[in-house]
């Protein structure tokens, strides 16, 4: 059971968090909790069924981090390895829904 980010996605996450100017640990904590839920509760995983991304999993959620509300989409692969699951995060697309 493990979760990993592709190098480019990790870089994107770091620079995005810097750009928002929010305490990195706060954003990270919200994102981690969603990822860990996906790891723990496979029933929450949603597979993409059509188009060139068919087979990947998509998770979309909102994060409330005053003064902003973020909508985050994450696409990932799940692979069975050594009796557990490996989640590979392939892209991370955040959008600011509301900025006070």
């Amino acid at each position, binding site marked *: 059971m493990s979760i990993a*980010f*592709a190098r480019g996605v990790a870089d994107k996450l770091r620079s995005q968090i810097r750009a928002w100017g929010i305490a990195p640990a706060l954003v990270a904590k919200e994102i981690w909790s969603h990822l860990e839920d996906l790891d723990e509760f496979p029933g929450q995983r949603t597979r993409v069924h059509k*188009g*060139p991304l068919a087979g990947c999993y*998509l998770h979309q959620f909102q994060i409330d981090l005053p003064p902003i509300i973020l909508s985050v989409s994450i*696409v990932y692969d799940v692979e069975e390895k050594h009796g557990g699951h490996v989640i*590979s995060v*392939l892209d991370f*697309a955040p959008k600011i829904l509301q900025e006070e």
Partner: protein
Amino acid sequence: MTTNALVLETIVRRSGRHVSRTRLLKLAYMADLIAWRVLGAPISRFNYHWHHHGPFDGEFYCAMEELASARRVTLDSLTTNEGHDCVLVCAATAPPSPQASHFTRGQIHILDYAIKQYLGLPLKDLLAVVYETEPMKSAERNDPLPMEAQRNRDKDDLGGICLETVLESREQFARGEHVTLEALKSEFAGRE
């Protein structure tokens, strides 16, 4: 070699078999439509118009002529069992094009996806799919198809996820270039 010719050659080569000329243009159209929706831009430079045999651009014949003249493909005319005249396009046995990198990962992935989805369909079923696409349904006879209206439709539905990034990420994972959640957690924990 023009982009249009390279798109057609790539489809024929990656199909691994002959492709009828009618089907080839429909495959290019479906790939372009998907590319508009997923990448925000087409792969070819065809300007599709509503035509009674499906989306069409006269440039298709120029691209075919370009490929045939350069001996990148061969064209064989035949009559089908149903009595229809047909031209089959086959990739020449020349070595792979040195311009294979003309296309991005995402464009190649979409061309392969279109081939996988539509190459094996009977032509009448493929035409039915093509006619049901939004640009074909929203255009009048002989009009240009409003392809730009499809820009990023699927990408937006996925919240802005980028196909090129997804494919690049898979390559990074294959090379062992990744960061574990635990490592990122530790990194961010030190930046309260």
